[in-house]
């Protein structure tokens, strides 16, 4: 497959863009190939993570010799300046290139040109406002490509046409019409209409119907007569005996020159005064096995004789029925996809709600240097962190992990964060704040939903306390000693038992010390071999990188994590907060 490069205008645009990668909430990839020159397809990046490659099962499937099976992935990361999209090469054979430079990991800016393999297939990264053809999700993009391929296969039968040139030309034009509409205007009704029109043209029948299999039999999908008028459901009448025979045996029935045999006496044939009937099964491969199942019927009839169908005509009709079966199969998928998209949209809304919980900026609190990071899974998870302004002026931060995933987790996050802010506003000490939040959560949520939380409060002198409500241990790097101390949980998670008390434990983050609070998504991140990142590895990285400061530790953690997981699917939110005392 040849590909065409996107115009170079992208780099000029780039010059006008701000250097700092401030991103709007949505972003897209514009994909231009030889099949759609000048009209790039838009691929939405609204999901948490997008894997690009040429093997099925990836999110964006691109067939090109330079594209590896799993080539690169794009993830959305929350950084202090706002969300950014990062492209990470998945050890592809031909490399991932951004603006002609080979990259392993690169924060994308609007206008960036991404090339998979040097001079390979090119994508352009843009913010959501640049969507030209309407944002489409990946499956939609593939869907259309697949349908176009199916339509092209249909045209393959044409060279066989040979005997009567004139009538064959008509048939060919019928097929081309079909092809054209198939590719351009894929809607159930239009596609069926063109299948029927082509079938009427080939057969010379008076009426044509497509029936779809439904529970308990075959029901009307669409009808058309030879003058091009739609036949409504009220006019829907087919010979039941013929349909039954085709549905049962899976073999087509062609009786174009008068009805004979056992069907001649059939009540419906006589009542409808039919002289000719053609009825073909529409087949699709079943999901479970490779056995073809009848999913619909293409039914043609006439009170006059139809064209005398030659072997080729039968072949064309059979082929048409085959493609119609394919369309039915696709329709099922389209319906499922539409449903899937609706769910994805709902999730996106919930995700936005949850993201809006994360603070837009990190507080300035001398002498502390603060870094925070959160990468959600594609399935909405339940991590969040926040910094709360308290009357005493102490730096008050928290990181929480809500049990479960999806919308319930997002709602519980919102509830917890709202309750925390409300309770802190009362000016009460943090232990009482957590007791209050716990009581509220116990009253509002079932016992199997809970929140683990690590909360810390530090004065400018580095002294303060922490409370861990069932949260995995935080780590405190001691700059003077060069070792890591563990800060274990002293109490039960929030939302389980109403009478749990939350007692603060003294904490001092002295000059040169660095506090690492994280969610277990970090230590339980898995590589392809299902091994966990682990606490030992995390402690090792902290010991080595913490002396060079919070920013360095953050970037080391992220690069070590990516090097470890090698693009294996993320199963849980990964969140951490780093507090360095730079006094």
């Amino acid at each position, binding site marked *: 497959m040849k590909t065409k490069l996107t115009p170079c205008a992208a780099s000029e645009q780039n010059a006008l863009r701000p250097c700092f990668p401030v991103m709007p909430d949505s972003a897209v990839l514009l994909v231009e190939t030889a099949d759609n020159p000048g009209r790039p397809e838009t691929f939405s990046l609204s999901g948490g993570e997008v894997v690009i490659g040429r093997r099925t099962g990836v999110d964006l499937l691109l067939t090109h010799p330079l594209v590896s099976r799993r080539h690169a992935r794009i993830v959305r990361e929350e950084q202090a300046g706002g969300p950014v999209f990062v492209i990470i090469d998945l050890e592809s054979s031909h490399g991932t290139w951004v603006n002609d430079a080979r990259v392993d990991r690169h924060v994308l800016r609007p206008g960036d040109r991404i090339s998979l393999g040097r001079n390979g297939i090119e994508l352009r990264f843009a913010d959501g406002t640049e969507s030209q053809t309407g944002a489409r999700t990946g499956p939609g993009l593939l869907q259309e490509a697949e349908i176009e391929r199916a339509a092209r296969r249909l045209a393959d039968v044409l060279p066989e046409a040979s005997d009567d040139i004139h009538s064959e030309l008509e048939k060919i034009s019928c097929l081309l019409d079909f092809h054209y509409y198939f590719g351009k205007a894929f809607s159930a009704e239009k596609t069926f209409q063109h299948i029927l029109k082509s079938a009427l043209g080939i057969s010379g029948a008076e009426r044509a119907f497509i029936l779809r299999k439904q529970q308990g039999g075959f029901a009307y999908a669409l009808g058309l007569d030879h003058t091009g008028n739609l036949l409504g459901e009220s006019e829907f009448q087919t010979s039941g005996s013929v349909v039954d025979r085709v549905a049962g045996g899976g073999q087509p029935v062609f009786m174009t020159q008068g009805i004979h045999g056992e069907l001649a006496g059939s009540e419906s044939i006589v009542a409808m005064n039919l002289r000719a009937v053609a009825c073909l099964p529409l087949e699709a491969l079943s999901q479970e096995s490779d056995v073809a199942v009848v999913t619909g019927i293409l039914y043609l009839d006439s009170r006059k004789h139809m064209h005398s169908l030659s072997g080729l005509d039968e072949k064309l009709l059979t082929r048409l029925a085959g493609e119609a079966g394919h369309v039915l199969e696709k329709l099922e998928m389209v319906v499922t996809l539409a449903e899937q998209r609706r769910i994805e949209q709902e999730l996106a809304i919930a995700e936005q709600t949850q993201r809006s919980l994360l603070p837009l900026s990190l507080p300035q609190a001398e002498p502390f240097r603060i870094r925070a990071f959160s990468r959600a899974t594609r399935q909405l998870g339940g991590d969040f962190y926040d910094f709360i302004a308290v009357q005493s002026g102490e730096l008050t931060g928290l990181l929480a992990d809500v049990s479960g995933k999806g919308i319930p987790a997002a709602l519980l996050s919102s509830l917890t964060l709202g309750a925390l802010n409300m309770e802190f506003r009362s000016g009460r000490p943090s232990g009482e704040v957590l007791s209050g939040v716990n009581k509220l959560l116990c009253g509002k949520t079932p016992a*199997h939903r*809970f929140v683990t939380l690590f909360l810390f409060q530090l004065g400018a002198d580095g002294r303060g306390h922490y409370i861990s409500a069932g949260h995995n241990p935080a780590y405190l790097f001691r700059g003077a000693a060069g070792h890591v101390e563990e800060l274990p949980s002293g109490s039960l998670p929030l939302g*389980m038992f109403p009478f749990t008390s939350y007692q603060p434990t003294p904490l001092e983050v002295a000059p040169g010390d660095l506090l690492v609070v994280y969610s277990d998504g970090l230590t339980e991140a898995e590589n392809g071999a299902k091994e966990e990142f682990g606490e030992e590895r995390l402690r090792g990285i902290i010991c080595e990188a913490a002396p060079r400061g919070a920013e360095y530790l953050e970037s080391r953690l992220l690069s070590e994590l990516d090097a470890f997981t090698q693009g294996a699917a993320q199963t849980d939110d990964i969140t951490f907060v780093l507090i360095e005392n730079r006094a």
Partner: protein
Amino acid sequence: MSLKLNTRDVDGVMVITVAGRITLGEGSSDIRDKVHELAANGTKKILLNLSDVTYIDSSGIGELVAGYTTMAGAGGTLKLVGLTNRVKDLLQITKLYTVFDVHEDEAHAVRSF
């Protein structure tokens, strides 16, 4: 592998043997539902045998807690036996071992009711 539950009566204690993964989605509410059903039928003593649990996540821990509170609310008791290291670690981290009555072997656990 999804979750499998097997319930039997041992000297008046309903022992529920849990096998598989207790995680979000994979039959995760089965334990909660089972305990609820037994409590509704008047069962006061439940022992969860977790020795065949291959994996548990935080949602799974939530299920154990839900079972515990259901029994406590019904005036009964729910105890645990046969914790794998993974379950032990999670109960340790979340401080839940201070809540659950945990036993090493089943016969001993049954006698403790």
